[in-house]
């Protein structure tokens, strides 16, 4: 037999790599020319390292020289850009992209907070808080899609959960009843979605849209017809923050992570359950099999319909839990449209996180960070118009979905109803 080595064409740097390199260069120049414009070498940026109003886990403020930091960051970005443009980072491109984003965002807050003080710990704590409903929404999406059902009704389920949580919580003056009602509300909408899309094989996008419209309409109606007139029905107790003894005293990290309400701890618990459940247990193996190749699962005796119902309903309970965060965890009442698209951003986090719970959580935190950054920056009052700052979370979503994700692919049978022969 003749042996020949495979010959490959030389394409060291793909056009995508070049474009990324070019963008990095521009970011570097932006930091050097725009951010680092009028600062003298005496300018100082101050970061507070303990969230406001917290006395445990205190850390002293962090002072940095604005001018020098921006020079370093800008040059670093510039160099990474040149390397990316000429050689490319190959399979490490995404990692580099994350690094570049971090450096750029850091330069940005250093610039915005020059001569002022920014509470970095507060920023991160609120990022985590903002991320909770996004991450929970993403988990709901993972459960449904991993089993083969597309669920775009997460937003509607969250909204319903938020309202029911507030009403029942106010009526009974019991947060646990409120939470149960919220989860039940999400679960019932999920049952409807499952029923329409699994049993009647209605297009899952249509079914999801219908549920979203129903939910928006229904909650607005109840809110304006009854909750306005009976304010006692919309004044619920909230879940308090519980500091975990010991852990909450760790400087910087303690107050950010270990002094939170049930929702944050619940999110972390669910993360562990889902991550292990999906990939290490029989339950997860069968659920994923049903979402990838239902017919194969069926021939091996797995009940496709039952598995899908189970997954979608569990997802609904999760979405209801996420909804409860808004009323029972955050403000203590229900406002119309208070979920403000977090369910959809949760779906984006799911896709960005490649349908894996842990990565979805990281993506959710990124989106939450963009959210909290935009509010911190507008409080500091920078020269950038507020509208642009408020665009930040959505801009991040678009860039992430268009740029990084690109080729990610979900469960193979997601969105296709299963028909038994």
């Amino acid at each position, binding site marked *: *037999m*003749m042996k*020949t080595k*495979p*010959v*490959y*064409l030389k*394409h060291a740097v793909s056009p995508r790599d070049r474009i990324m390199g070019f963008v990095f260069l521009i970011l570097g120049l932006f930091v050097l020319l725009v951010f680092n414009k009028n600062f003298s070498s005496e300018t100082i940026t101050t970061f507070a390292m303990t969230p406001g109003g917290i006395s445990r886990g205190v850390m002293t403020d962090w002072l940095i020289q604005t001018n020098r930091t921006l020079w370093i960051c800008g040059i670093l970005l510039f160099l990474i850009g040149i390397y990316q443009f000429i050689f490319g980072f190959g399979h490490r491109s995404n990692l580099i992209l994350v690094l570049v984003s971090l450096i750029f965002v850091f330069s940005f807050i250093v610039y915005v907070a020059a001569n002022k003080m920014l509470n970095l710990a507060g920023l991160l704590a609120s990022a985590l808080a903002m991320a909770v409903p996004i991450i929970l929404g993403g988990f709901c999406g993972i459960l449904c899609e991993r089993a083969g059902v597309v669920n775009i009704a997460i937003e509607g389920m969250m909204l319903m959960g938020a309202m029911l949580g507030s009403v029942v919580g106010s009526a009974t003056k019991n947060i646990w009843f409120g939470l149960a009602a919220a989860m039940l509300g999400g679960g019932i909408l999920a049952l409807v979605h499952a029923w329409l899309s699994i049993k009647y094989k209605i297009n899952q996008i249509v079914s999801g849209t219908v549920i979203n419209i129903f939910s928006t309409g229904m909650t607005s109606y109840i809110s304006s017809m009854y909750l306005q007139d009976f304010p006692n029905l919309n004044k619920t107790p909230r879940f308090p923050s519980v500091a975990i003894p010991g852990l909450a005293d760790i400087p910087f990290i303690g107050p950010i992570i270990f002094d939170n309400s049930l929702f944050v701890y619940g999110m972390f618990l669910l993360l562990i359950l889902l991550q292990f459940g999906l990939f*290490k*247990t*029989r*339950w997860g*193996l*069968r659920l*994923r*099999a049903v979402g*990838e*190749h239902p*017919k*194969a*699962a*069926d*021939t*091996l*005796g*797995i009940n496709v319909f039952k598995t899908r119902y189970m997954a979608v309903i569990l997802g609904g309970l999760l979405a209801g839990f996420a909804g409860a965060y808004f009323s029972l965890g955050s403000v203590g009442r229900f406002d119309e449209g208070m979920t403000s698209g977090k369910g959809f951003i949760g779906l984006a986090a799911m896709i960005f996180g490649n349908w894996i719970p842990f990565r979805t959580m990281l993506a959710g935190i990124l989106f939450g960070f963009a959210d909290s950054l935009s509010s911190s920056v507008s409080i500091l009052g920078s020269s950038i118009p507020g509208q642009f700052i408020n665009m930040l979370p959505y801009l991040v979503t678009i860039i992430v979905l268009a740029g990084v994700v690109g080729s990610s692919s979900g469960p*193979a049978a997601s969105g296709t109803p299963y028909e038994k*022969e």
Partner: protein
Amino acid sequence: MTPVLELTGITKQFPGVLANDHIDLKLEKGEILALLGENGAGKSTLMNILYGLYQPDSGTIFVNGKQIDVHSSIDAIRAGIGMVHQHFMLIPVFTVTDNVMLGEESLVLGDFLDRKTAAARIRKISEQYNLDVDPNAMVGDLPVGVQQRVEIIKLLYRDASILIFDEPTAVLTPQEADELFKIMRSLSEQGKSIIFITHKLREVLEYSDRIMVIRRGKVIGETTPSDADQEKLAEMMVGRAVNLNQDKKKAQKGEIVLQAKDLVVADSTKKITVHSITFTLYSGEILGIAGVQGNGQTELEEAVTGMRDFESGEIQISGKVIRKIKPREFVEAGGAHVPEDRQRDGLILSFPVEDNLMLCTYYKPPFSINGILDRKEIRRNAQTLISEFDVRTPSPLTDVGTLSGGNQQKVIVARELSRNNRLIVASQPTRGLDVGSIEYIHGQLLKKRDEGCGILLISSELDEIMELSDRILVMYKGEAIVTVDADAVSKSEIGLYMAGISQQRIPGSSETAAEKSSMGE
């Protein structure tokens, strides 16, 4: 001795078709039974009944003499019956271990998967039956032949003693098929009983112990490989004498229709798979490209027909030099293309037959006038072609995806050959088809040749190449290792070239030559 499996009087009626008509079948322990029949003869229906995917209208199933009811595939698995489906029931993004144990998981600590134990069991099975598979590999990364082994392991993992293979070689290269039959033999020697469904005569004659022929839902007869030959089996299958060897007139070579010079083509991973190939195709001849699947034929086909850019070299169609060719230019230059993957590149499965029959020229009169489709003309065209090319379809408005493979291929052949072309590129034109359809398509290709078309025939079936070609080019690892006149070469020589043994080094041993000649099946 009681047979391991016995079916009596199995009848299944589908709307309009009696798919199984009182079928009786017996399978002895350790036996390989071939179930032979054309596409649509009812073989798969019978096996699906046995596997619990369909319910029979009447009839009984006995396993080891005991009557069993099979309502779902689980009942079948419990009775020791396992099936390797034609389209694998595997999940590409799962590992081999996960695929095998799905539904029958090894567990620890309640619901946690015990992948180690399962993998160890898989290793044991693969050693016992010579099924070489890495339990930790991702199934989607494995070649088709290995994926099939995973399917077999799945059955053995469930202690199946009766194994059904539905068209097992349809998706395999000849080497993989050889390997599979070795595995089947070793399974039967270790006491497993096997039924394999096929319409390939040679496989049946070479590898089965007993042959049962089914036609239109009825058992036509039983025979053994020693009592039968290809002609006899073909006749039993089709119900009439089949011309397995086309009469071929001498080629009347004319002017050059296609010329490739130093053509270099890379695949989608940028690996160069066609290394500087040069050939010339004249009108009125068939140039066969022989070679084991995956030696660059697919990329060559795609480059010539404009589906893939080539890296360097030159293509000339009817004397016109083309640097960068698009599929439409290929069509406009008088080219016809019967693609290798008919469902992906040849048809739009969810479109009706009549639309598929005008896909290449839909934008031109008579089908389209000022950008508006002329439905009447499209229907007329479809009706003509359906009768002329004997496409078996309920109506021109039937979705092409619902037709059988043979009829889908006839739709493509009808569309491509009905245009007034000078050049035909046909890749694996009869893959997966039964003898009747093969006979028909071969006849059509020869007819076009005699009318003065130049035909580039790419096929990994050596028999097909030998039967149709006037000249043969053998591709090995992307290179044309030889171009010869079909009359001046034996099948065994081509077999050797296909294995990469070049002209100078062909050994005189007739034994190796005979062995290699079986590669084309």
